[in-house]
Structures are given as structure tokens and as C-alpha cells.
């Protein structure tokens, strides 16, 4: 696999500690350009014209949650191709299914390690590149 580590990644979470943790893990994997947003609404603003290659988003957030953001992104001609990894804590059956139907590329259950995150990302990009 050849993962482009130079792509811009956006971490979306309302809890700043979580953003920091995820950012750290992404940087360990080797990503150099990691940005963050506090909720779905802020993320959408950043994404527009932001040339992001990948999004890691929390589910539960004020203003606009991860699922609404996901739907908005998939409806947007400019953004719809951006792969999205959804972070979820209590992996409820219905929730994940809704996310898949809405077009999420993969999901990851909190808490996770750098290795697991890497595997998920690799899977996403392997699939896209096939």
C-alpha cells in the first residue's frame, strides 16, 4: 500500500483532549498535516476549498453531529469523495448501519491504539485505490 502521508487530515471532535490524542496518533503514523475542528459545522467550513484528503470524525457533537456532517459531505460535489473514518464509543448496531448507509468509509471504536488506527486507514485507502 502506498499511503500518501502528505495529505491534509481533519480531526473533528468537540473535546479538545480527544482531538489532541487523535492528532498525536495520526502524527505517529506519519501524517504531517493534521488540522482540527470542534464540530460538524466548523468542519464543513474548513473543508470547503481546504483540499483535505481524509477526515477522522467523532459522532456525538453539539451544533452538528458526525452523521449530519457525513451526509452533508456526501451531498456536496466538491467534498463527496473525501474518505471519512467515524469514531464511535458505544458501537450500536443501528448507528453503524446508518453511518454506512450515509456513506462512511469505516469506523473505529474508542479507545484505540495507533496501530488499529493505521490498519483502518490502510483499509480505507486500499479499497479506494483498487
Amino acid at each position: 500500500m502506498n499511503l500518501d502521508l502528505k495529505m491534509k487530515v481533519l480531526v473533528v471532535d468537540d473535546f479538545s483532549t480527544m482531538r489532541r490524542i487523535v492528532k498525536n496518533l495520526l502524527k505517529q503514523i506519519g501524517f504531517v498535516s493534521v488540522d482540527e475542528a470542534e464540530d460538524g459545522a466548523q468542519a464543513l467550513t474548513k473543508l470547503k476549498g481546504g483540499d483535505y484528503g481524509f477526515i477522522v470524525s467523532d459522532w456525538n457533537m453539539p451544533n452538528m453531529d458526525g452523521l449530519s456532517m457525513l451526509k452533508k459531505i456526501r451531498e456536496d460535489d466538491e467534498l463527496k469523495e473525501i474518505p471519512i473514518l467515524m469514531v464511535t464509543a458505544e458501537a450500536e448496531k443501528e448507528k453503524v448501519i446508518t453511518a454506512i448507509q450515509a456513506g462512511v468509509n469505516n469506523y473505529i471504536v474508542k479507545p484505540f491504539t495507533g496501530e488499529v488506527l493505521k490498519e483502518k486507514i490502510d483499509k480505507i485507502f486500499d479499497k479506494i485505490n483498487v
Partner: protein
Amino acid sequence: MSDEMEEIISEFITEAEESLDKIEPLFVELEQKGEDKDMLDDIFRSMHTIKGAAGFLNFQSIVDVAHSSENLMKKLRDGDIPLSTHVMDAILKSIDMLRLLLSNLKDKNGVEEDVAPLVSELENVLIRALNGNPVPDSNDVISEQTESPAESISPATEESAPLMESAIVQGPEDSACTSEQENSAEIQTPPQVTEQEIEELAKSVQAQDNRNSEKQQPSKDLGQNLKDKSAQNLRVDVERIDKVMDLAGEVVLVRNRLLNISNYFDQMYSSDPKSETLMETVSFLDRVTSDMQLAVMKIRMQPIKKVLSKFPRLVRDMSAGVNKDVDLLISGEGTEVDKTVIENIGDPLTHILRNSIDHGLESSEERIAKGKPARGKIEINIFQKGNQIVIEISDDGKGLDLDKLKSKAIEKGLISKEDASKMTNDAITEIIFMPGFSTKEFATELSGRGVGMDVVKTNISQLNGYVEIITEKNVGTTFRICIPLTLAIIQALMVEVGGIKYAIPLSPIEETMKISENDIDNISGQNVIVIRDKVCPLFELNTILETGSSANGSSAYKYIIVISLGDKKFCIAVDKLVGQEEVVIKNLKGVDTNSSYVLGATITGDGKVVFILDVTGMSRQLIGTAKV
């Protein structure tokens, strides 16, 4: 532990505490307003987020408590269980426990709480609530096991290694298998997904979830990487800000001296063009320094909401304790105040609230009999007025019984019968702040100390503020607290008595006047002066400070300073008015500021050390005994 890890942990503690601060008042609001979906969503989300982050950091106890509490909240949100007092109590206890766990982490004391009883209690409450059982005994059980958090804060046993250690130490031996399985769910490129795939996916999700709850993955490889701060906000150590604040204070002092010297040169060499340039430069420095001082001060300012957020809960618990129904209304919580105020205003406000609930408000029956609404009302109103922050706590209760206050004070030997007969109404209300007056030992579970209303006065004086009481029988009582906006630098009037210079804070000074000996009257031994038809007690600064150098009676004229603190007005006579100056308060160690009327000291423009006088203290002492 890496610095990065330590930083993340401390950020987590702060953020989690902030989240709890945010949701706690919501519970009380929920209880009053009934179930509100948005509010429940907010609460649920915060708890959920704390759990998630704690999982990464491997703080298992926090995860456990947050998880059980979240379960309850989820059922509440989904409408599966009703919002009962039992459920609410249980959730509030879990918040208390989370706070305790966080504070243990913060103190790095290695103390481990046994959360198992609470977790099982939360589960019990949930089960009973689901069965529609009113849970007659759960309340007892909950309070029993959480009542004594002090007991559980026993020194850590040998084997209970600090949590943070275990977060690092716990090996990756089982990480290989879990990570492999965790990733078992395959997802097709959207949006085409077959039913079967979804079923499979859902199954693997369930399986994964189960594993997750069994064994948490250690996050040992967090951090070590690039230090990266959140772009919008910067968390800075308070010490660093205080250092800047200190330096800004020093700059103000130097500026004052420079102003002084340049004025001198301006007068001496007014013809020299350089003199004008010097004046210009110094006045620019003057402006910039003031701006800088303000900017630095602003860094330390925080919304007072931080303190107020705990009050709805407090009022709920306290009013339940005395069987009264109380509504709390808060306005102006966005008002920003200095950090020192945030840190020190909580206790006095708690005492005032407690006093209002205990003594101010009547019981429901009594209220109905008086034709008042059955529910008592307490309002907290905060606003900025000029360069002061005003905090008003009003109740619509019975008002202070002045006669009762007097007789109780006489009984306790705090005042003599003779004093009492001469006291003004204002002076009488002040009685409740006298040390030794309040009989009730207040709030051990909240403040941890048995203290009375006198502490309110002391704490607020320490912030250079003052409290006054406005009371009306059967209408209610208002405690009004006024605190200067900034604590470190104040505008002061420089005066001279017996050849010594003093600084008097400018904010309580209403006016200054020049009077002749003839203007002074004497009413039953107290010197007074009539200002615009109002009688005002007059005191000699010399006498107040007991400087010994008796007033130079030779001069026929005196300067007086009219001080106005709330409703109180009095005059202080001095020999000379020197001028206005911005002074930096330096605290004096080893000086009893209560009895000496000295707030602190400062260095003036001419490089001399000058005492800053405490007019609030004076007013308390002088007006208390004034016979007007």
C-alpha cells in the same frame, strides 16, 4: 511519563472538570422544568465524551463510573425511564465521584477510590426505574455509600499503583489479537450495502464492543510526537501570567517615577526643546503602560459563570435539607472578573445563599399565610458598574428582624444595651457579620469548615470589596457585594497627615472639601459636618491611625474626604491633599491588616514607600460605633 503524556492528562482533567461544571446545573434545571430532550442530549454527550477520552488514557475508574451514569442518562434521554429524584440523586452522586477521581488524578496522590459500590448502585437504580419501581430504599443505599468519600480517601495501599503509571506499564501483550479482531468489520464502498453485510457488520460490532468492555487497550504509544497546540486557545500556566502581571506592575511604578521626574525637568528647563520631547515621550509611555496594564488584567479575567455553575445544585440540596421549595434565578453570569475573585468569591456566596435559605426564606405554609407564592425565590444578579463588579443576592423572604438581631447580640455580649439603643438600622444589620454572632455551624460538607457570616465579610474585604445589606420586613433581604475590577493596581488619592503621606483608594471617595473649624458640629460626642443638608460623621485620620501627632489645631481649615460605601457616608479629615496617583498594591507580610486599617503599601512616583489605607475596614469600625 513523557511530558506530552503529562500535558494530555492535565488537559483532560481540566476539560473533564469543565464539562462537569457545565452539566451539573443542567440537572437541577431538568428537575425543575421537566424532561427536555436537548438538555438531556447535552448532558449525555458530555458524559459520553469524558468516558471516551478517559478510555484512551486508561483511567478505568472514570470509564466505569461514566459508563454506568451514561447508561442511566441514555434511558432517560430515550424516555425509557422517568426522571425521578432517585435517578437524579444517583446521577449527581456519580458526578461527585467523577470529580473526586479527577481531583485525585490532579493531586497525583495515587489514591484509588472503590467505585464498585457506586457502579452497582447506579445499575440498581436503573433496573428498578425500568421496572417502574419507586425504589423506596435505594436512596438510603446511595447516600450510605457515597456519604463518606472522606473515608475512601485513605492512603493508597502498596498494590494500588497510580493510575497513570499503569496506563504506561500495562503491556501490549494482548494488543495483537484485539487489534486484529477489532478490524474485522469490512465495509463496502457506499452507498450500496446488502442486508447480509449489514447483519454481519452489526454482529462484528457487537462482538467488538464486548471485547472492548472487557479489556481496554492501553494507549502507551500516545504522545512523544510533535507538540501541537489547539489553534484558537492557549492554555497557559497562571504563574506565567502572574509574572507578566507583576512586571506590568513594576512598569507602572517606573512610569510614575518617570512622570514625576519629567515634570520636574519640564518646569526647570521649559525653554529647552528637548524638554518638550521628553514630555511627549513620557506621556506616550503613560498611555501605553495603562493599555498594557489593562490588557494583562484582561488575560486573568474569566466569566463568573465558573463559580455560579455549582449553585443550582447547591440550592437544590440545601433547600431539600430544610424542606423548603426554592427557585434560583441567575443573571449576568457572563460578567468577567479577575481570577482571584473567581477563586475567592465562591465561599462567601455559598454562605450568603445558605443564610438566605436557612433564615431568609419562610416555609411554604408561612409564605402562603402571608399571601406570597409558596415557592421561595433567590436571585443572583451580577453586573459591572463603573470600575466595580456588583453581585446581588436577593431573597423574597421575611427580611431581617432588627430587634431580634439586637437582642441576640446583647445576649451574646457583642454589644452593650447602651450601644444598641444608639445604633442605626444599618449598623444593626451589620451585626450578622460580627464574629461569634451566627450560632449555626455552617456547612461542613461544602466548605469543610464550621464558619459563619463573619467569614463573608473577611473574604470580601480581602478582595478590597465590601458587603452591604438591604432588608425590608416581609419583602426580603439583599446582600450586595461590590468588588473592584482589578485587584493589583488602583487609583488612589494621596493625602498627608502629620507630615506622613498615605494613599486612599479613589473608588469609594465621593468628594473632597475644604472646611473651617466652624463647620464642624458635635452631636452627643461625635463630630459631624453638614453636607448639603445631610449630617455626616467626621473623623480625624490622625485619631483613627493613632499616629500620636495630635491634629495641628493651629490651622483654621481642614481638608475632608467624603467616603461613600454603599449607603454609608462619612468624612475623614486630613492635613493636606497631595494628588491622584495610580498605585500598585504590594501586600505587606506580617501586618494585621484588620486592626491597622492598612491594605498594603506602594512605591510612589518620588520613590517613597506609602501605606494604602483600608477605608472599608475603617467604615466597619467607625460606623459600627458611630453615634449618629
